[in-house]
């Protein structure tokens, strides 16, 4: 079966993944809403997953895709626990603005 890599090469996927990862970093630094920061983390995880799949196809090895499964499992666990923490923070503080979380500040 033909794949896209014959037409555009694996390096185009590298550039796309790098740009997507930078956008995720930008979201983390720019926003104060914790939920949007979570979404930025998801964008970064997906950028790395896409690079793994591109290289798995490039080397014709199934291991890369297996790693993507594990990273998806970790992402699902991270989102479940993280959102539970956010709900708990929201109950105690009334907002999820990370600048309000200053209880540990001396």
């Amino acid at each position: 079966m033909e794949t896209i890599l014959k037409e555009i090469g694996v390096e185009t996927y590298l550039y796309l993944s790098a740009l997507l990862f930078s956008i995720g970093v930008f979201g983390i630094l720019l926003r104060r809403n914790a939920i949007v920061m979570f979404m930025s983390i998801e964008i970064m995880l997906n950028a790395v997953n896409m690079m793994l799949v591109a290289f798995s196809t490039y080397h014709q090895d199934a291991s890369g895709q297996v790693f993507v499964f594990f990273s998806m499992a970790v992402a699902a666990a991270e989102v479940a626990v993280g959102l539970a923490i956010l709900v708990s923070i929201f109950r105690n503080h009334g907002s999820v603005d990370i600048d309000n979380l200053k209880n540990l500040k001396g």
Partner: protein
Amino acid sequence: MGEIIFYALAAVTLGTALLTIFSRNPIHSALSLVVCFFSIAGHYLLLNAQFLAIVHIIVYSGAIMILMLFTIMLMNLNKDDESHKPIAAKIAATIAFCLVGLVLLAGLLRTKPVVESYYYSGEDFQSIKVLGKVLLNEYMVPFEFASVLLLVAMIGAVLISKKDKEKSLK
């Protein structure tokens, strides 16, 4: 043909990712992120990873985004009441974004002479059959650990979000 599809999908991916981080309303962010995940599943289909594309749609667009949307609605955040960051922080974030992108792209641009062109041997390596064999032979132990991780995450999520209620009962 494939090239056009790739560039269209890439534009959708990057555009909706930018929309996700720039929308003031978290619900709009979540909906843009769903479109972004669908376009990434399209990339997986282009790379011939059909099973992974389906799993990606089910896990990300289905489970994770529904969880996030429910949380947003539970917290009643569907209004843009986010106070603005100081302008210096925004400028710093933009500079950091440009630097990260520049460094990553500059590092990856040098790889072009190193990676040779794609050669397809015709071997089946990413059907569900082969993936299942690799997953349950080579990666048996990490697979079991992933199941333990998901169980612990489930218990932890329930415990963390219940703790407040128990305290108020006492």
